[in-house]
């Protein structure tokens, strides 16, 4: 049973179609990269998957359960966590409150303190700042907080939307190292990125989204090895964003 499966999903805003008939599968334990330029429909794709907009047609299946159009909080309960583009940390709340809110669906599980401890162990820089307002964190720290906050729900599958956006090359390296280690721990990851080279470097498979449709998919190594693809679709060295 795949972790996440999209079958012919079409979605958009108003009368503008964002994605059309997208088919995509993420197997349990796999890291999949969804690549595409600005405006290719990556954000619409993620909003349709995570319940922020209702797809016009098609199915979204999460661990065998049809979750098409389900509200975000139900999806979190079903095991999906979403790290939104631009971090979207809750600036007026403290770092610890942001993390604890990530465990909202597990508030009665009695393991929240334990999970908080393990996230703070992973991100030691957040530990020093746990009582600070999250808005005062640097960009890199905010990205760590956004990922740590998603981990607080003990997800089975993690959706990452442009985690490298707006970060320095050094921090981008850190974020991709983190993704690699999360994948090594067995977490299923769907990574949506413009930064094709880096994304394919950590992914098992990749999908290429062009003007709302999947135009290419395959093993990450194959996509990386094809110079034509990198040149024509993914912008030269791939680090451009």
């Amino acid at each position: 049973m795949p972790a996440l499966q999209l079958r012919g999903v079409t979605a958009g805003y108003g009368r503008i179609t964002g994605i059309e008939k997208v088919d995509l599968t993420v197997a349990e334990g796999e890291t999949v990269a969804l690549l595409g330029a600005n405006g290719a429909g990556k954000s619409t794709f993620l909003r349709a998957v995570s319940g922020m907009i209702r797809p016009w047609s098609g199915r979204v299946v999460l661990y065998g359960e049809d979750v098409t159009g389900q509200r975000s909080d139900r999806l979190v309960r079903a095991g999906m966590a979403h790290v939104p583009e631009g971090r979207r940390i809750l600036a007026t709340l403290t770092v610890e409150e942001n993390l604890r809110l990530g465990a909202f669906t597990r508030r009665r599980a009695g393991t929240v303190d334990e999970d908080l401890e393990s996230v703070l162990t992973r991100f030691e820089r957040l530990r020093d700042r746990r009582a600070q307002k999250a808005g005062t964190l640097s960009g890199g720290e905010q990205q760590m907080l956004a990922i740590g906050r998603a981990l607080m729900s003990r997800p089975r599958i993690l959706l990452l939307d442009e985690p490298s956006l707006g970060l320095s090359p050094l921090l981008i390296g850190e974020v991709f190292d983190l993704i690699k280690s999360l994948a090594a721990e067995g977490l299923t990851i769907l990574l949506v990125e413009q930064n094709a080279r880096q994304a394919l470097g950590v992914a098992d498979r990749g999908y290429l989204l062009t003007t709302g449709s999947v135009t290419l998919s395959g093993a990450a190594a194959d996509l990386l090895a094809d110079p034509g693809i990198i040149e024509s679709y993914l912008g030269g060295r791939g680090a451009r964003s």
Partner: protein
Amino acid sequence: MLIQQLVNGVLLGTTFALIALSFNLVVGALDRLNFALGETAMVSAICAALLVSQADVPFVVAFVLSLLIGAVVAALTYLLSFRFVSPKYHTAPILSSLGVGLVITSLVTRTFGSDQRRVPTVLEDVRFELGPLVVTGDQLIILVVAALLTGLLYVFLNRTTWGTAIRGVSDDADTSGLLGVPVQRVILLTFVLSGALAGASGLLTGLSFHTVSPFTGFETTLTALMVVVLGGLGNITGGVIAALLIGVVETLTVAYVSATFRDLLVFILVAVTLVVRPQGLFTRQSGVAARV
């Protein structure tokens, strides 16, 4: 007796602070004003006053009921005027909640008549005299209960999971939803809390004047709006300070100028503030400011 008037003004201000807090909670959760909160306060106060004066229900019981009635009315207002209105229409909830307010007023006058209702003194024998300054037992109740409710709300918002969720939704509802917070339920909870505060404010205001009228609902909404605008929309602390300020200004105007100028002076104060500082005396905390 300036000092006595100042004390009376501050006491009046504490009841304004509760209703302003009530408005600001909803502004935080939804960026909308609930224009039926004044009537929510009124219906709670009328019911409580009837129970105390006609059915000899103890004040404490009536007070708890006023909280519950306020909470239920606010929850209904949410379902009727906010829940199913598309966020595209910014003015629709203003009109629909104003409508709910009108319905509440006419339901109350049809059911209980349009008479003013008496709120009897609770602590008859208690009276504090500090030199020329007199504080009655009822004034003390108003002060203590208002402070207690504000304190409880503060603790709830800052120390509990659901309270944190309310602040999260107030900061960014979409992101809170992605984290697994059931946004609609949190907004409903916010309305319930704001309604309970409005109910308490209604009864305490009734206690301070020893009377409640079924026609003061919209007046309460207006006063609360003045407070909320003066203190900075959505700013909880600003609202409390502005409430005390307006309470003092109103009381001093009645004592030294004329009761007919009471609201006029407050409106002038707010108008001048808006010209000089359009964001109110205090601004809303960062992060949310961009969305207002």
